[in-house]
């Protein structure tokens, strides 16, 4: 079974709408990282969360970490075509291991 589960697996939204992607871990989180990937390309780092209750924002993207629930959410406000792509959460699941385990990704499509 997947140690990190993302939902939904795919999402189609109209430009200008808000959306949320969730990432849930079956294990304790020692760091949660959000990346974006355009089709056929490498991963681009978005944000990192380390402490329970932590919330970070960059432009129109906000990420939150609920340590007790072992989950994180990524929220995009007023979506734009440039937000389209695959969003991946990665996590450190073994303290000090410094390797990321990834979810299966959420494919986001923005319709004009």
């Amino acid at each position, binding site marked *: 079974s997947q140690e990190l589960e*993302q939902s939904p697996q795919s999402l189609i939204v109209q430009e200008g709408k808000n959306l949320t992607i969730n990432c849930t871990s079956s294990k304790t989180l020692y760091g949660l990282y959000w990346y974006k990937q355009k089709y056929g*390309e*490498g991963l681009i*780092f978005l944000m990192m969360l380390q402490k329970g209750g932590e919330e970070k924002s960059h432009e129109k993207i906000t990420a939150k970490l609920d340590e007790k629930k072992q989950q994180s959410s990524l929220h995009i406000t007023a979506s734009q075509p440039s937000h389209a792509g695959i969003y991946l959460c990665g996590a450190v699941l073994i303290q000090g*291991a*410094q*390797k990321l385990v*990834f979810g*299966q*990704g959420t494919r986001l499509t923005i319709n004009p």
Partner: protein
Amino acid sequence: EAEVAQSPRYKITEKSQAVAFWCDPISGHATLYWYRQILGQGPELLVQFQDESVVDDSQLPKDRFSAERLKGVDSTLKIQPAELGDSAMYLCASSSVYSGSSGANVLTFGAGSRLTVL
């Protein structure tokens, strides 16, 4: 801005052939990772190096895959012989954080090498 370099970007090969991928991490980054990403899935760690030493290769299919980082800088991932199921994106990443240390560890990824096995 510093980048992780990978080559080739695309490789098409026939099954049973040998294939190799090269990665040059960001200068000074001690830790180097090779991930495999099958279409529609998230990346899966194949091997993690700290300097020239292997830290984790538990998911590397060692009967056909090998990886080396001889001088602790650039790295090569080899597949011999390639199988149809090896078709995937091979991603290299690097970070400045040492294994075993606490704190943030942002991995910087290269553009990837897409392998198609016919």
